[in-house]
């Protein structure tokens, strides 16, 4: 057991080194959420949510926290595993005595490191640029959102990796399967509204809005997000089931 943990930690270090070595990949992973944060955040400075005293940025910054988690856990991990499978790296791992759990554990640990870093950057810049920080007593909500967000979207990332059929399409498929949902979930626009009722219900069923709302609960007082947490747990369960059913070590 301890050996597996040690091997997983080593794997995670190698993954992190490789991640930072491909500069454009690392930069894009970080630059995308941060750019959106700064550009759209600037457009919302001084505005308040209709009929409230809540600043737009107080809702927008935690939404981008959720966005960053999803990019690092779902898009990055999902496309990475698809590429590793397509390149035969996963199959090569299977020729060694390394336990599968230690290898996947290493990939997940590296993902956690990236997510934590991206969340810290987004939170810090949101606070410095727009004065939007977590409310007093908001840290538990932030931690729960972070943990559940990573677990849920990393699982869904592994799930989507099994659907991707080529290394070339890995990035596009991962992004295309989540960006439209992020847009109609209002992640990029705190005052987003006016969806037809059926579409609004549909989008609420997806985990993107749920995670955004959990994170918003750390910045502004909201009712306890029982439905959102249940939503994330349900999607995690669906993801685990799908991974167990479809995950393959080679094409």
């Amino acid at each position, binding site marked *: 057991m301890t050996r597996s943990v040690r*091997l997983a930690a*080593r794997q995670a270090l*190698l993954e992190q*080194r490789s991640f930072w070595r491909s500069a454009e990949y690392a930069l894009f992973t970080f630059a995308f959420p941060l750019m959106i944060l700064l550009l759209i955040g600037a457009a919302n400075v001084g505005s308040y949510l209709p009929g409230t005293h809540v600043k737009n940025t107080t809702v927008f910054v935690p939404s981008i926290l959720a966005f960053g988690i999803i990019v690092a856990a779902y898009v990055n991990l999902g496309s990475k595993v698809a590429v590793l499978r397509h390149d035969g790296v996963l199959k090569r791992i299977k020729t060694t*005595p390394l336990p599968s759990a230690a290898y996947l554990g290493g990939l997940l640990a590296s993902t956690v490191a990236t997510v934590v870093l991206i969340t810290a950057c987004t939170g810090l810049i949101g606070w410095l640029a727009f004065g939007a920080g977590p409310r007093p007593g908001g840290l538990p909500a932030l931690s729960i959102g972070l943990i559940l967000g990573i677990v849920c979207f990393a699982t869904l990332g592994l799930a989507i990796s099994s659907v991707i059929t080529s290394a070339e399409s890995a990035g596009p498929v991962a992004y295309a399967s989540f960006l439209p949902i992020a847009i109609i979930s209002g992640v990029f626009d705190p005052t987003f509204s006016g969806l037809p009722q059926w579409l609004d219900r549909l989008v609420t069923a997806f985990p993107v809005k749920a995670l955004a709302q959990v994170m918003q609960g750390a910045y502004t007082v909201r009712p306890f997000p029982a439905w959102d947490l249940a939503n994330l747990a349900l999607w995690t369960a669906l993801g685990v089931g799908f991974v167990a059913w479809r995950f393959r070590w080679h094409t």
Partner: protein
Amino acid sequence: MTDTRVIDEWIAPVTDGFAVQVRGLRMSYGSTEVLRGVDFDVRYGEVFCLLGPNGAGKTTTLEILEGFRPATGGTVRVLGLNPATQASRLRERAGMVLQECGFPRQARVAELIDMWRSYYPNPRPLGELLAVVELAEVRNTQVRKLSGGQRRRLDFALALAGDPDLVFLDEPTTGFDPEARRRCWAAIENLRRLGTTIMLTTHYLDEAECLADRIAILRAGQIELVGTTRQVAALAGLATRISFTTPAALRRGQVALPDGFGLTVRGPVSVCHTDNAAVTLRRLLDWAVQNRLGDLDGLAVAAPSLEDTYLQLTGPDPEIT
């Protein structure tokens, strides 16, 4: 023979001296029968080559031995283990080079080998691995910048990282230019010197002839022949080939062909095959003297080659029939 047995017992007494034992191996995909009762043994310390045309079942055989596929029937023992049920124990002691397995794109050569070493209980030293596969100069290069031949040698290094008793190589040089092939062969030769048992598949004759101690020819899911290169040729019942430059008089039809030993004229070269080279050669030279053809320029006597054997087994060959 006695010596071999002593060494075998010293390395691994549990397996009665065989690194790999295959008996009656069968494999079907749906209704297609890929392997139809395959038998062979691989001895400790030898380079054993499974030779055959594409689609003969070489990779399938190897994947069963490596524990990647359960067989439909038959018995398989690798290092005394059953690969279907003891795959994880097997992987600590056997290195595997599969066809077309990629690397993590951004990893560096030495870093990756070191990572692989950490997977095994008793890894081989990094410097030694780099030396065996001749990659010491590119140890800090990112894997994606390596040439095809270098990548294949990195494959070898990773397969050797755990200091395995047995290494499987699936078509190690397919698609390489001659220079890259030579360097791969050199790496395999280095492996052999370390005492590692090697089982490789190939559809290149020269590769089998150059590297293998023993060869099994696999064709359409069955072993046609097993033995050393010479034994395989002899078992195939092939004749010695005698050839010489066709004399001008014979080409112009001024001299009649000798009777009785099937000499055929193919433009500039005349060829015949015989089971008794000495007798045939004497008669041939007598015939040459009688017809004032001199000493027969370019006279050559060749033992049956692996290529002759292989071509005869895997397809019709007009030169022999």
